[in-house]
């Protein structure tokens, strides 16, 4: 049931006030609204305006499942700080994994729904604040992901050139406008990789780390038909990389990468994947073996690692121009050392050898230092130990977990057990549960959040919203001209431009990396 006030406004807005097979639209012309069913309101008719902050997979899956529940008069506005949608599917997934990007076609179908609108190049917290958004929408969903990195906090991390976050490197080769246009970054990477027998250390062992290693180790010719950006290809063609080490703190039984990506890494033409057998042996502690026996997927992965060959005797560089990709285990990074000949550049990473132990509760396997150190010479270190979400002004943030405090998707007023939900504000994706999981994890996540939204709607817990449009608000605040906001049609023009120019080079697309150019194409 609606409150009298809600009823009055819906009447004025010409929105349905009754649900069921016979729906009568009230209009100011009629003084009375009538229908042949009792005047109950189903949850789907209460929600008329939804705003989603973030157009990545989490935002799109929430949009998809919400649109299934909502009535024909509802609108779903999805906004993103970039002019292009799809988040990490565009800027994170590796260029040689086009099959993973296929999920975009699912998202494009969602965008084809007439109730869906895209607002690209809108930065929440800068162009528009959260308080305004809350007043515009019945339901506001935060799906803005994690745009910062976790740091190691060890000496040399912030001062030496050559210590780069993996996210930066991935954004760079994938054409994220904030990184791909950074001439200093391109220059530095180009210079480092062009050195004879360059060596790279990737710290962390998730799929992002394997992506970095694979892109560095692959022959540039094998990347030329992917949608990797041209400026990255130029650097990779000049690269004289000899070895990449992918280093983890714990053993191979705890590695976070998945078997498909590892298999792929072992089958790269022109590169050889090796693992030191003694690090594999030291990783097979009793509790690790017991853990592996309980999980078939982990056992398969550990067996694959154990089956890889050992490094060549007498050094890291491969014979015959072959690049070596080494998986290293049980090494805790302790410091970055400068190159003695060029003190501002990275020269080596110091590791402390580790052994595996069970933590206090006996549940988790942790790596404990043994006191022995090992120096790994390298000129580029990619830090791939996880992402971190940023807080947004106007909303609570759990600094310990680096997520927005929530319960099943309902944003809470504070990061505590007793906190009550903030009415009408929800979250999904990494900003809700932390930066873990794969693209598909968002499916279940989104369903949980949508279930919470629909439950709250049915119980009348949603706040009231105004009827201004987002574009009006942006223009009034003077922060963003309407022509600088990218609509879905604008994105389709960008998409068509990129595909056309990619086809000329035998690539699926040639990404536009300049944000001004992106806006120009969207407006054309």
């Amino acid at each position: 049931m609606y409150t009298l006030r809600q009823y009055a406004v819906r009447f004025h807005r010409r929105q349905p006030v009754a649900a069921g097979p016979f729906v009568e639209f009230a209009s100011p012309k009629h003084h009375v609204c009538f229908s042949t069913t009792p005047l109950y309101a189903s949850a789907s008719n209460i929600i008329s305006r939804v705003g989603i902050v973030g157009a990545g997979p989490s935002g799109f899956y929430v949009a998809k499942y919400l649109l299934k529940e909502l009535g024909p008069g509802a609108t779903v506005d999805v906004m993103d700080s970039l002019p292009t949608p799809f988040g990490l599917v565009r800027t994170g997934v590796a260029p040689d994994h086009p099959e993973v990007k296929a999920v975009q076609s699912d998202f494009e179908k969602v965008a084809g729904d007439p109730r869906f609108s895209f607002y690209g190049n809108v930065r929440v917290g800068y162009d528009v604040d959260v308080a305004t958004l809350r007043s515009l929408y019945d339901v506001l969903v935060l799906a803005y992901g994690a745009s910062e990195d976790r740091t190691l906090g060890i000496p040399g991390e912030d001062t030496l050139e050559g210590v780069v976050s993996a996210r930066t490197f991935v954004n760079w080769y994938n054409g994220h406008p904030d990184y791909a246009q950074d001439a200093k970054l391109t220059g530095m990477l180009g210079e480092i990789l062009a050195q004879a027998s360059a060596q790279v250390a990737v710290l962390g062992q998730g799929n992002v780390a394997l992506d970095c290693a694979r892109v560095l180790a692959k022959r540039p010719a094998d990347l030329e038909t992917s949608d990797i950006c041209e400026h990255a290809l130029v650097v990779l063609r000049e690269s004289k990389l000899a070895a990449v080490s992918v280093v983890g703190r714990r053993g191979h039984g705890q590695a976070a990468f998945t078997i498909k990506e590892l298999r792929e890494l072992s089958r790269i033409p022109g590169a050889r994947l090796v693992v030191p057998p003694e690090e594999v042996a030291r990783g097979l502690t009793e509790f690790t073996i017991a853990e592996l026996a309980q999980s078939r997927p982990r056992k398969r992965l550990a067996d694959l690692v154990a089956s890889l060959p050992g490094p060549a005797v007498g050094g890291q560089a491969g014979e015959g121009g072959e690049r070596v990709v080494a998986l290293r285990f049980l090494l805790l990074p302790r410091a970055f050392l400068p190159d003695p000949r060029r003190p501002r550049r990275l020269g080596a990473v110091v590791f402390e050898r580790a052994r595996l132990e069970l933590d206090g509760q006996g549940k988790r396997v942790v790596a404990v230092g043994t006191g022995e150190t090992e120096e790994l010479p390298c000129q580029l270190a990619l830090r791939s130990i996880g992402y971190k979400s940023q807080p947004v002004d106007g909303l609570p943030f759990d600094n310990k977990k680096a997520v927005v405090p929530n319960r099943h998707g309902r944003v809470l007023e504070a990061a505590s057990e007793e906190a009550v939900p903030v009415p009408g504000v929800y979250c999904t994706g990494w900003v809700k549960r932390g930066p873990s999981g794969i693209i598909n994890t968002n499916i279940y996540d989104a369903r949980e959040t949508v279930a919470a939204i629909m439950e709250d709607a049915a119980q009348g817990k949603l706040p009231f919203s105004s009827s201004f449009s987002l574009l009006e608000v942006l223009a009034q605040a003077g922060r963003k001209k309407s022509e600088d906001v990218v609509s879905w049609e604008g994105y389709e023009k960008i998409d068509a431009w990129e595909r056309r120019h990619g086809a000329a080079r035998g690539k699926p697309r040639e990404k536009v990396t300049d944000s001004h150019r992106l806006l120009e194409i969207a407006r054309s």
Partner: protein
Amino acid sequence: MLHVASPFLRRRALACFIPSSLPPPSSWQGDRAILSFTGSTLPKSMVGDLRRRLLRRTYHGTVPRAKDVTMTWHVEGEAIAVTAPEGKTLLEVAHDNDIELEGACGGELACSTCHVVFTPELYARLPEKKEEEEDMLDLAWGLTETSRLGCQIKVTPLLENAVITIPEETNNMLGGEDEGKGGAAGGQGEPWAK
């Protein structure tokens, strides 16, 4: 299609256009085979069917006709009876019948969202898993001993009266630090270097 009255004449008409040296349907690439007489593409299953009908007349042999297979899908507590033509993948069958089965990668073995569960007896008789399918299944939520990916199982008479279950999502899939061999490096909240 040709609108010729008698089936006999229709077959003769078709026979003029389909070359006798067509390769078997399984070796055609992509979803559609182009036949010149229509000037447009025909679905592979229709071409195969045409070819079978022609051969049937010509060779007087018993060529199996594509038949429909009945099966039951268990989704979110509901049991849905479905009739599906041979040759379609289970993912296609689900979509054709409005059964909610995600196929995020479109059947390219790049995700595990079309995960379905069979009964042990039927599972044992299904064709072997490819290594790639097994690798992706490892990431599936609610993985069981009798799980397969729906995009890899084609409808055959073997699936007559099959019971196919789409696993329920459970909350413990989302939480947990070491859950499901997820993709991104690391988790959150714990110190990296001790």
